[in-house]
């Protein structure tokens, strides 16, 4: 390369570095690299690994195609775990949504003073780790010395019998996460301009009509976001159940995350664990997609309000 060519190349590089689009890409690059390293690459590897068998020492063995997927889908534990998880997500998110909305409306009703205090008081359960929540409820529900049986004067194996173990897991989760809905919904209700309600009253709307035509539409973005957050999080339920019921009795309260964990970290069957991980991701993707389609599609589409 001649000196002239080198100088020309150097100028070209400088000119490129002065270009706004190049700069924009350079600033975005670390985030993209990070995303690639911690999300895209592992996900691609998960799909790739799911097509192989692994030795007990964790080394890739032979290519098995879709055999791991067949094994996972024909495993009753995985399918019942998937059914339980979907049911769990539907029940807890619905309950948390309704309770959270009800409590928020109550807090912002004319009967309640010092609203901020009530909001703050509702938060502690959400601040606990799922393990602590599980341990707390286990102590309350254990038949030997638990307060619930004592207060109710009954003898129920809350954590080891059907259907009570599922009820226990749902109650613990609703107790923990309803405050998130309260927090988001109270903040949203507070931000709705009072003038909307004044206009509604001038138009002769009842309280129910005001809620239906003013409050709910104004909360739609918040509802979509908090539902999405909770659905994704509820799908991952694991430590709380592990502490409360260990997935029992039998596999009655076993979640899909627990089954996938077992494949990978207890049975050390990495091929099957990767296949389960892919299926698990697909399930969550479908759930997230349905939420967006039903609640928030226009918020993110080009012509949407968001």
């Amino acid at each position: 390369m001649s000196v002239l060519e080198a100088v020309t190349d150097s100028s070209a590089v400088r000119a490129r570095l002065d270009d706004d689009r190049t700069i924009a890409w350079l600033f975005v690059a670390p985030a993209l690299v990070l995303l690639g390293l911690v999300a895209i690459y592992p996900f691609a590897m998960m799909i790739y690994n799911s097509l192989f068998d692994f030795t007990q020492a964790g080394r890739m063995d032979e290519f098995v195609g879709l055999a791991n997927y067949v094994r996972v889908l024909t495993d009753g534990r995985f399918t019942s775990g998937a059914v339980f998880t979907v049911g769990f997500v539907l029940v807890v998110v619905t309950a948390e949504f309704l309770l959270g909305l009800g409590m928020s409306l109550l807090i912002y009703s004319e009967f309640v003073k010092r609203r901020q205090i009530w909001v703050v008081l509702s938060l502690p359960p959400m601040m606990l780790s799922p393990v602590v929540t599980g341990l707390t409820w286990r102590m309350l529900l254990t038949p030997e010395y638990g307060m619930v049986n004592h207060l109710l004067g009954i003898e129920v194996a809350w954590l080891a019998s059907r259907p009570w173990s599922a009820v226990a897991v749902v109650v613990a989760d609703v107790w923990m996460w309803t405050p998130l809905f309260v927090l988001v919904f109270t903040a949203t209700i507070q931000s709705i301009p009072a003038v909307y309600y004044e206009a509604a009253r001038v138009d002769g709307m009842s309280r129910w009509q005001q809620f239906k035509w003013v409050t709910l539409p104004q909360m739609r973005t918040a509802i979509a976001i908090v539902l999405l957050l909770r659905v994704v999080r509820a799908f991952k339920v694991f430590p709380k159940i592990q502490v409360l019921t260990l997935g029992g009795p039998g596999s009655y309260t076993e979640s899909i995350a627990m089954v996938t964990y077992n494949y990978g970290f207890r049975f050390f069957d990495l091929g099957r664990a990767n296949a389960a991980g892919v299926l698990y991701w697909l399930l969550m993707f479908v759930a997230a997609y349905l939420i967006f389609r039903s609640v928030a599609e226009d918020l993110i589409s080009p012509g949407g309000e968001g």
Partner: protein
Amino acid sequence: MGRDTNSRGRVGRRSYLRAVGAGATAAGLAGCVGNLTGGGSGEPGGQVDDTANPTGSYEGVELNFATSSNYIDAWNDLASQFSEQSGIEVEVTSYAQSEMLTQLLNQFRAQEASFDAFISDVIWTGSFMQPGFAEDLGPYFDSPLANADYDYDDHLTVFAENYGQWNGTRYGLPWYGDVMKLSVRKDVLEEHADAYESEHDESIMPEMFGGYESYAKYNRVAQFMHDQGWDMGLEGQRGWNIVYYYPNRFAAETGEASMLDDDGNSRLDAEGATTALQHYIDQVEWARNPLSTGYTQSRDQFLDGNTWAVEQWGTATAQFIDEWGWEEGVRVSLTPGGYPNLGGWGVLLNTYSNQEVKDAAFLFAQWATSKEMDKYAFTEHGVTPTRRSSFTDEIKEEYPQARYQDPEENPGIEQLSLRPRNPSYQELGDTMQVQISDALSGNTGAAETMQSIHDEWESIMSENE
């Protein structure tokens, strides 16, 4: 006033690029440093200068020892004594017992395990030995590191084989010889002895040390005692406890110590396997909160005086004796039918450590499992002996529970029920605990449950061949 970010001056851009470059370099260097650790080669005992004092050649060597948090006090004590005597520094790291296997195996898989020696539950040994994670100790016993007074054959054979051997190769040294026991409240049974004998024409009391001759007999007593207002202790909570409660019953009914045959085929389709589960299911009715009871709860129930009998491990049994008195308040015997389940631990070495550290780790393991320390660990920390020589008259007088474990006095202690020790144990045990838990909660019957577990075991074993 801060710089306008939209000006995008050359300095900011170059600084940014420099920072990115520095980050990449640092990451690369970190990777190089990471690759420098681990490995090592050489022959065991290769650096021993004085064969009369092999430990002296390893003064200043540092090694890391991994233990379950249940035994952290015992191992801290042993490590500190050994460090003082030998000059070899032993750092002890503890893991929660429920997570220890997973954490150790994950490190082994990365070939960068942070520990040089570790204790392994009897049921984990296959997971470490079969893939080659544990060091073959044969060459060490043929090296200058071997202590001529160690006397490997002094360990009870059943402990030596199950805690330390795989396909005839010696990988570990026995450390804690734990076996299940049936503890009964002798004082409580004596109160009801006459009534029971007149009703059933047999003694209510289990023999010392033979225990009840069968689970059928144990169940008769359990039902009778339940009618008198006394529940038995029964671990029926979903968990690993099921996988040591069931084998007690399986072996008693079938006469087979192991639930797998020598070729790895399941024996769970045997008629006795179903009878064993039926006994377990029947007991739910006469037990105290059985579905919510695991190891801790069953121990506490017995200690609190709320149950008259319980199958338990060594540490709990020692507490029972402290609480109720040996042969006054409590009698300790073999589990019904005479096949108590084998628990316990061995000490293994990490094959990925470097040779100098492995040598030092072998010296530590050999010392910690020697005749002297076997007695010491029992008397000071309640770690049940693995050696015949530990059952001296003095020890048995001071700690009468040792009599249960002494093969001279209790020959039944060498006939044990065994859980599968192979690397598939986690999956075999998991399916067993889940399905038996279902049966205990009344959701499935004994026959269909055992057939289902049998089929799954066959499938797991064939997949992992």
